[in-house]
């Protein structure tokens, strides 16, 4: 591309002619000591807590501690070029990030600077990183479903729009995979997704972005990345920055989904900051306000009242446990803040049950109201059935002779477990989920060998889609499984059953 030099020159000339420099007034202080992402500053006598300050090299910082003789500042950026005696200026503003449509599809750092090499993020609007959560009057109960596309979750621990559902489990149990599938399943649902990678390996985040791009999910997703190589202050503010970006759309009346991957790393970063700032350590050396750090973040997820546009922000925080220890400090804190948790177990994962959700202790406290009627109808007894199956299975391992009814219950249980398995990046539409679970619980797949259940399920869904599309259509449009539809579904499944048996 060739540029017209004279055009550009005239723009610049006009800008210079119009420029009226104003006297800059600011509070200043001087750096007493600096290191490990924090600085202690003398002066700044009128600085406010949480105010943004500026160092001579242009790096920004945030006032963190106000002490008698000095101010503790966390440095958001390169702290190696800041030295003792440097002048620090207040800006009179709170830390804010760019928000709006310009950020969608971009990969940014917690300050909103682009990381994807696609040029500057040009947005006229910004939003403070720390915002008060909507109050009681501004909210309404969660009532719309947020389809994750994962059978086990949508059937037994449904997530509603505006809910906070914790995803918890040991390392390598598929926590991120569940959240990615959820993002991918929002395609065409008009939900803006924000993925906050906090303290993750940069290579993992790159993989996540690649997966999102490959499935066309980057068109409606913002990725906020603060890899583990970032200084602790950046990792600490990353979730708040992501929340601010989603919040903007929530107040516009849109639906949003935020994933904080993961909050245990953020807690570690915050612990590092607090200890460097000499705040007194508490349990596991975390500072006293670690609970508040997480609760004020997760409280920002809400379903707004209709007067405020009815937008919503669903949060899926992730917590990594050590050796399945859910009673550690951070996991118990976040469990108590959220509206339920999805618990992933390594034992299940290695037994090939993926997603490795332990349905026994996974709960959703508000999602039930948000479940579609059809799903509620077919999945109502699923959790209890599975629990009964687990008990029987343990009993059957003793090798005792079983009566016919018990054996049948066991067989169906094996097939249900098989049916709830789902490969990654293949979220299912809720109508397909309803059909699958209906077929499983009503025994239409009882004659299929356990190893072939997944294959049979695929064939069945294809069969319904091709030859009985009116059944699926009815479930999609009404969201219900009324008697007539159920009758039609029954006959369709009967048809499939005989056809499948003939083929064998």
């Amino acid at each position: 591309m060739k540029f017209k030099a004279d055009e550009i020159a005239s723009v610049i000339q006009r800008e210079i002619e119009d420029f009226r420099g104003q006297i800059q007034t600011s509070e200043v202080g001087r750096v007493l000591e600096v290191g490990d992402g924090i600085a202690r500053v003398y002066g700044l006598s009128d600085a406010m807590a949480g105010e943004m300050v500026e160092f001579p090299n242009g790096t920004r910082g945030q006032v963190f501690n106000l002490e008698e003789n000095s101010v503790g500042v966390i440095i958001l950026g390169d702290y190696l070029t800041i030295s003792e005696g440097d002048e620090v200026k207040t800006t009179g503003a709170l830390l804010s990030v760019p928000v709006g449509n310009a950020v969608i599809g971009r990969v940014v750092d917690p300050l909103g600077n682009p990381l994807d090499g696609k040029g500057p993020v040009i947005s006229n609007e910004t939003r403070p990183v720390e915002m008060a959560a909507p109050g009681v009057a501004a909210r309404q109960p969660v009532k719309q479903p947020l389809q994750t596309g994962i059978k086990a979750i949508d059937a037994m621990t449904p997530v509603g729009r505006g809910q906070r559902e914790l995803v918890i489990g040991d390392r390598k149990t598929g926590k991120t995979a569940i959240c990615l599938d959820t993002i991918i399943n929002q395609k065409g649902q008009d939900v803006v997704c924000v993925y906050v990678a906090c303290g993750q390996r940069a290579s993992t985040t790159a993989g996540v972005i690649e997966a999102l791009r490959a499935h066309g999910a980057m068109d409606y997703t913002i990725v906020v990345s603060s890899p583990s190589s970032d200084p602790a202050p950046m990792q600490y503010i990353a979730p708040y920055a992501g929340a601010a970006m989603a919040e903007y759309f929530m107040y516009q009346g849109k639906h949003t989904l935020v994933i904080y991957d993961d909050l245990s790393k953020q807690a570690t970063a915050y612990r590092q900051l607090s200890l460097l700032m000499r705040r007194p350590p508490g349990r596991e050396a975390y500072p006293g306000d670690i609970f508040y750090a997480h609760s004020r973040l997760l409280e920002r997820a809400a379903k707004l009242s209709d007067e405020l546009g009815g937008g919503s922000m669903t949060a899926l925080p992730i917590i990594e446990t050590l050796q399945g220890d859910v009673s550690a400090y951070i996991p118990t804190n976040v469990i108590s803040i959220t509206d339920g948790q999805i618990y992933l177990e390594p034992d299940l994962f290695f037994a090939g049950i993926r997603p490795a959700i332990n349905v026994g202790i996974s709960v959703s406290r508000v999602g039930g109201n948000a479940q579609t009627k059809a799903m509620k109808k077919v999945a109502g007894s699923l959790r209890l059935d599975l629990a009964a199956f687990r008990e029987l299975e343990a009993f059957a391992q003793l090798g005792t002779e079983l009566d016919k009814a018990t054996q049948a219950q066991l067989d169906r249980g094996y097939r249900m477990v098989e049916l709830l398995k789902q490969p990654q990046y293949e979220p299912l539409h809720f109508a397909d989920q309803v059909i699958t679970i209906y077929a499983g619980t009503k025994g239409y797949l009882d004659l299929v060998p356990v190893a072939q259940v997944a294959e049979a399920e695929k064939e069945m869904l294809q069969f319904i889609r091709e030859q009985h599309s009116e059944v699926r259509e009815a479930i999609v449009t009404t969201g219900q499984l009324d008697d007539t539809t159920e009758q039609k579904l029954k006959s369709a499944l009967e048809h499939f059953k005989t056809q499948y048996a003939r083929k064998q």
Partner: protein
Amino acid sequence: MVDNAELQHRISSVMDDPGARALAHVYGEAYLNAIPEGQVADYLEEFESFLSDVVEKFPEFSQALLSGMVSRDNKLRLLQQVTEGRASEIFASFLQVLARHERLPLLPAIYRQCLHQQELRTNHQRVQVTSARTLSEQSLESLTQKLGAALPFQPIIEARVDPSLIGGLHIRVGDTVYDGSLRTRLKQLQARLRERSSHEIQSGRNRFSHSAGN
């Protein structure tokens, strides 16, 4: 009033220890409060003369006062001998208090704090004015008048020269800086050009490029 030159005890680029400064503030304020009304100037002069005529002139004496090898009682006795009959009663007992609390090394800092406090009490405050070139007596005079009219106190101007400002003035009152220097304005202009023009060029690419050249 004390001369401007008198406050230049330390190099301006070296920072005070904030802890020591806070302590010195407490002692300085206490000393000022102990002085009978109307005699502050005399007592401060005595303080200054103790620092310049005794402590600085006799290094052995100040070493003895600061040394950890000399016991507190010996320091007290030494001070008593030096001050008896020569210093005022208040100043002598002030030195005794400092010696008892092992705060003698803070003496110069306490003196600075006394001056500072006294200035505040008489509604004066120091203002650091930095300019690119040396300011003439006349311009300093008019600056003092203008600042006096604009600020709620009488300014005591400490003029400094920093050629990197290019032009204009940089005025610092306490922690607040009023920056009207050319350097800062150029920086503002640079930031604005970068922000606005890049925005304009991004939003209207056709205007700036030849359609045939692509």
